[in-house]
């Protein structure tokens, strides 16, 4: 028997290339005659292009072409954000692009272009936009409506009533309720109420979204940084105004995405269209400065929460109001936030209200647990406050409220596929030694005070219905074709294990094919929402089962007997009880090629996606080919929970916080790759800590221009800002509704880390909840020293 690979550590197949410099990311591809493009960015937060004078640029030697917004297909769907715009909605929005023989010339040409801009009213704070007479971020409105943006204003009385430190709560654009919160509050034993604020922050993946494009025989070849390979073709085709079949997407490696490169990025349209226009390959190097603008950001919130509890800690009422800073083009984090809150606390009664407001700030998109991380980070300290008032242990209050397998999600109160949340809390509590450590709370040594805190963070972690595609080639190896991207989660390899385990095949005999759509890749998930592990262990499992069937059938045809007489293991299909009587995979591949038909891609299962059908057709005749759709079904929402525990020491003289210990536990179903799982969890936790502790966004209110454009001003956490030895454990109970049992892990650790940090800091401050991110040392010190707060309670981006 081959060793089962699921549950073991492997060295990912791409690692060697990654550490020898051979792994080629988008900017590492150079083509003959390659031109360089540079972007002209809007200097104003909101403006209209009156006219553009490119004559001086065009007269420059070496300038090859200029691309304007009007030359790109108008995006009709989604956010309607184009790569270029004549009505820039944020400072740094690309207006046009110039291609030249080298970058120096392109830059000089951009500087020589005169753009006559009409400044338009701009707004940075959503609440300013909701006031009567307040500016709208877009000429067509400030909130999303049924048919595009519309204008929403609240009467002054709403603001007057709230005062400066409480969220004004006018008419929302989204609202739902479960039960009757008002009645529940009337009966609650403890009620806590807080103004809660979460900043927006740029994703800042290490690799900026550089891309290079060229055209060959009518096809667009695009080298870009994308989280999902196969699913990027469609958006790129739409951007370039061509058929999806004519897009070859090459993205073997993605230097980080975190939700900012889910299915390609709008800016890919620039080299794609510009290279066709000038008839040369075009490289668009995106700098960190540009990445700050066009690189996407998490949506921030200004909110209010009122929570009622019974004396045993059970949450009886949750009333939540969120105003979302949607940036220039919108995001749906706020809605997810309300849903995720139910997966933490299962409130007996709940009311959710929200307004997403456009602002003249960089575009938002999903960022690791969009909405989820924010709400967890904002609510967990408030729950702690209630626990203190109730005299209930903080771990206990989470266990009391956490969902079990009969738990429910969101306004529709649908089921989960599995929820080992209490198990995860217990496991984490044990790992962290919560009982003992929580006694350290408030201990003072010298100027340092200990704080202990925890955060529980749920998020969606799966989807279904994708396709798996496997080929056994005459080399005897199983080639697992993966349409998903390779953004470092090792899922290109880890989800392939579902197939190799079904085939009982040694991992060394598996070849993963990924990263280039010309290599015939099946229809996949977008690599987002932590779906991939779940969706593609299923799809590859389905394809593996199909492959087993084909091998058995082929063996029966070749060697006699019925298909059920044959077993598959160790790279052979053989008669049960007689290993010698069978075919090696290499032989099977050859026979399959000889026989053709369904064995080598000649007949294609009807239920496959067109993309997979095309891939199978492209591979036809190259080996034994099995493709299958994941039809396993999914009777509920797939969710993963992460609980993170932190012990911090707060220096009361400086406001500095050091995390002295950190432990996390998760319920993410079956563990596929322990080391990678721990790394992703810890990494997510660290990202969350970064958001809670140091990472920030700052704009000048007068000019609408951000200053946190560089790493040193944006302050993502470095290796010295996080604990050196975080600990981790997984419940490792399979999700019963998926064959491999695995759920995703990417998203929930972020909120867990953020909340654990925020709660631990609040604990060190004697339970004082500042209920905002980031919680920088200056804010902490001001609070400890009783000095005036240098910000308003509702201010974001300070």
């Amino acid at each position, binding site marked *: 028997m081959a060793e089962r690979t699921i549950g073991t550590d492997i060295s990912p197949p791409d690692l060697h290339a990654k550490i020898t410099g051979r792994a080629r990311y988008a900017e590492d591809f150079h083509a003959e005659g390659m031109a360089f493009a*540079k972007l*002209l*960015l809007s*200097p104003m937060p909101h403006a209209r292009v009156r006219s553009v004078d490119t004559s001086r640029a065009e007269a420059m030697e070496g300038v090859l072409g200029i691309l304007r917004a009007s030359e790109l297909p108008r995006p009709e769907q989604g956010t309607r954000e184009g790569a270029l715009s004549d009505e820039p909605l944020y400072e740094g929005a690309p207006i046009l692009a110039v291609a030249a023989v080298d*970058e*120096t010339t392109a*830059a000089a040409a*951009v*500087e020589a*272009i*005169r*753009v006559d801009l009409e400044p338009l009213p701009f707004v940075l704070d959503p609440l300013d936009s909701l006031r009567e007479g307040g500016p709208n971020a877009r000429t067509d409105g400030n909130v999303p409506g049924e048919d595009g943006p519309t204008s929403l204003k609240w009467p002054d009385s709403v603001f007057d009533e709230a005062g400066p430190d409480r969220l004004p709560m006018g008419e929302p654009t989204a609202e739902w309720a479960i039960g009757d919160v008002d009645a529940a509050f009337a009966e609650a034993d403890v009620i806590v109420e807080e103004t809660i604020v979460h900043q927006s922050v740029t994703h800042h993946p290490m690799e900026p979204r550089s891309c290079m494009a060229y055209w060959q025989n009518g096809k667009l070849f695009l080298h870009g940084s994308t989280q999902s390979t196969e699913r990027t073709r469609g958006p790129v085709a739409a951007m370039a105004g061509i058929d999806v079949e004519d897009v070859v997407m090459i993205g073997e490696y993605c230097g980080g995405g975190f939700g900012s490169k889910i299915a390609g990025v709008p800016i890919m349209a620039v080299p794609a269209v510009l290279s066709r226009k000038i008839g040369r390959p075009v490289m668009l190097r995106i*700098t*960190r*400065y*540009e990445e700050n603008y066009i690189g996407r950001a998490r949506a921030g919130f200004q909110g209010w929460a009122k929570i009622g509890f019974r004396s045993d800690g059970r949450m009886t009422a949750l009333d939540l109001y969120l105003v979302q800073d949607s940036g220039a083009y919108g995001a749906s984090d706020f809605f997810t936030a309300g849903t995720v809150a139910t997966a933490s606390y299962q409130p007996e009664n709940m009311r959710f209200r929200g307004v997403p407001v456009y602002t003249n700030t960089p575009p938002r998109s999903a960022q690791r647990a969009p909405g989820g991380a924010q709400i967890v980070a904002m609510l967990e300290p408030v729950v702690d406050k209630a626990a203190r008032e109730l005299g209930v242990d903080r771990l206990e209050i989470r266990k009391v409220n956490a969902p079990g397998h009969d738990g429910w999600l969101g306004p529709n109160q649908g089921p989960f596929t599995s929820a080992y949340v209490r198990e995860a809390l217990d496991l984490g509590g044990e790992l962290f030694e919560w009982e003992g450590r929580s006694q350290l709370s408030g201990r003072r040594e010298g*100027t340092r005070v200990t704080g202990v805190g925890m955060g529980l963070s749920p998020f969606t972690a799966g989807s279904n219905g994708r396709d798996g595609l496997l080929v056994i080639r005459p080399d005897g190896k199983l080639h697992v074709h993966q349409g998903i991207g390779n953004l470092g989660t090792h899922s290109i390899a880890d989800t392939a294990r579902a197939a190799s385990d079904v085939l009982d095949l040694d991992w060394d005999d598996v070849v993963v094919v990924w990263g280039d759509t010309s290599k015939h890749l099946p229809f996949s998930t977008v690599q987002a929402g932590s779906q991939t592990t779940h969706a593609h262990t299923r799809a590859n499992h389905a394809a593996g089962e199909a492959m087993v069937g084909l091998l058995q059938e082929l063996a029966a045809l070749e060697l006699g007997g019925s298909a059920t007489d044959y077993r598959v293991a160790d790279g052979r299909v053989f008669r049960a009880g007689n290993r010698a009587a069978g075919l090696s995979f290499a032989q099977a591949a050859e026979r399959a090629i000889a026989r053709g038909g369904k064995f080598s891609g000649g007949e294609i299962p009807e239920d496959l996606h067109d993309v997979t059908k095309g891939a199978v057709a492209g591979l036809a005749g190259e080996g034994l080919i099995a493709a299958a759709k994941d039809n396993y079904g999914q009777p509920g929402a797939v969710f993963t929970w992460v609980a993170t525990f932190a012990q911090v020491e707060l220096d009361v*003289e*400086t*406001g*500095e916080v050091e995390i002295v210990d950190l432990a996390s536990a998760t319920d993410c179903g079956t563990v596929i790759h322990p080391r990678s799982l721990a790394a992703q969890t810890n990494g997510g936790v660290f990202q969350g800590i970064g958001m809670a502790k*140091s990472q920030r966004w*700052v*704009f*000048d*209110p*007068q*000019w609408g*221009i951000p*200053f946190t454009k560089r*790493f*040193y*001003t944006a*302050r993502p*956490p*470095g*290796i*010295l*800002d996080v604990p050196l030895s975080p600990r981790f454990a997984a419940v490792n109970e399979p999700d019963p509704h998926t064959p491999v049992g695995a759920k995703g892990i990417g998203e929930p650790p972020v909120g867990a880390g953020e909340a654990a940090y925020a709660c631990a800091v609040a604990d060190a401050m004697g339970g004082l909840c500042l209920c905002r991110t980031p919680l*920088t*040392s*200056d*804010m902490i*010190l*001001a609070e400890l*020293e009783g*000095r*005036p707060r*240098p*910000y308003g309670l509702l201010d974001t981006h*300070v």
Partner: protein
Amino acid sequence: MAVIRDMIAPFELYQPAGVDDAVRLMDQYGDEGWVLAGGLDTFDWFKDRIKRPAAVIDLAAVDEIRGIAEGGDGGLDIGAMTSLTAVAEHADVQSRYPLLAEAAGLVATPQIRNQGTLGGNIVQDTRCWYYRSGWPCYRAGGNICYASTRRAMNREHCIMGADRCVAVNPSDTAPALVALDAEMVVASSSGERTYAAADFFIGPDIDIERMTVLEPGDLLTRIVLPAPREGARWYFEKIRDRKSWDFSLVTVASMLQVQGGVIQDARVVVNSIAPYPVRMGAVEAAIRGREPSEETGQMAGEIAVEGARALRHNDYKIALTRNLVKRSIRDAA
């Protein structure tokens, strides 16, 4: 004009082999010339295309001002081109001037310390992000301080020493050198001049466009440390948002001479609260003759922040300065 970043504008490059050649080239180019040492400050300006000198004078080959040597009178003589790593790890610096070793070792990151020079760290420009964005503020020759407006984002800015401009000095080694009573040796075509470290830095009231006395044509060549004082206790602490690659919010450097449990003499310097490292003369006078205790520290802290004025977002610096000065006396090792 559109803003392009992260593309260095072309320039002529010189790599003189000695101070004399360098100074001659600096004279030749005047305002159009730019002296390149480690380059960590320089490349920011170049890549932002805010500074576009005609000629760059790269000091990489000027070996005569690199290295650490015994100075006269039992001190040390450090070439301005000595890397921060070399300063931080030098045995004599570590044993005799731990304050400086500590300060140099806390600059940015290992790579930056490997390349960045002591001289460069001392003469670096402020990190005020309004100024660094290329906005036409006072420091850039304009008529406004964007950072001191009512709604400005000035968490990192001045609480004292401001004059129109509220930018702070970002150097980690500067306060240490002021506390150590170092001397700065400056070469120019008209010869060599020497400044006490405290006089080397200037405020915007004197010249709003410069942070040091250096004018075009001047080159900081050496830093001379006097012999370490007997019975000296020292304290250095840099508060920053991230533990690597970050500038200080407030930094304190102090040297106390304690004999018989009583402070005989003291030098207390705080940086990143003013456009120059602030030597706390009143504090020094007040603590002389007292024990380095919590009470003395508390009093010193209060004196240190007398007259400090907060901007919209930096009130915390007053508390932080007070506390750090307190610690620097209470906890001096």
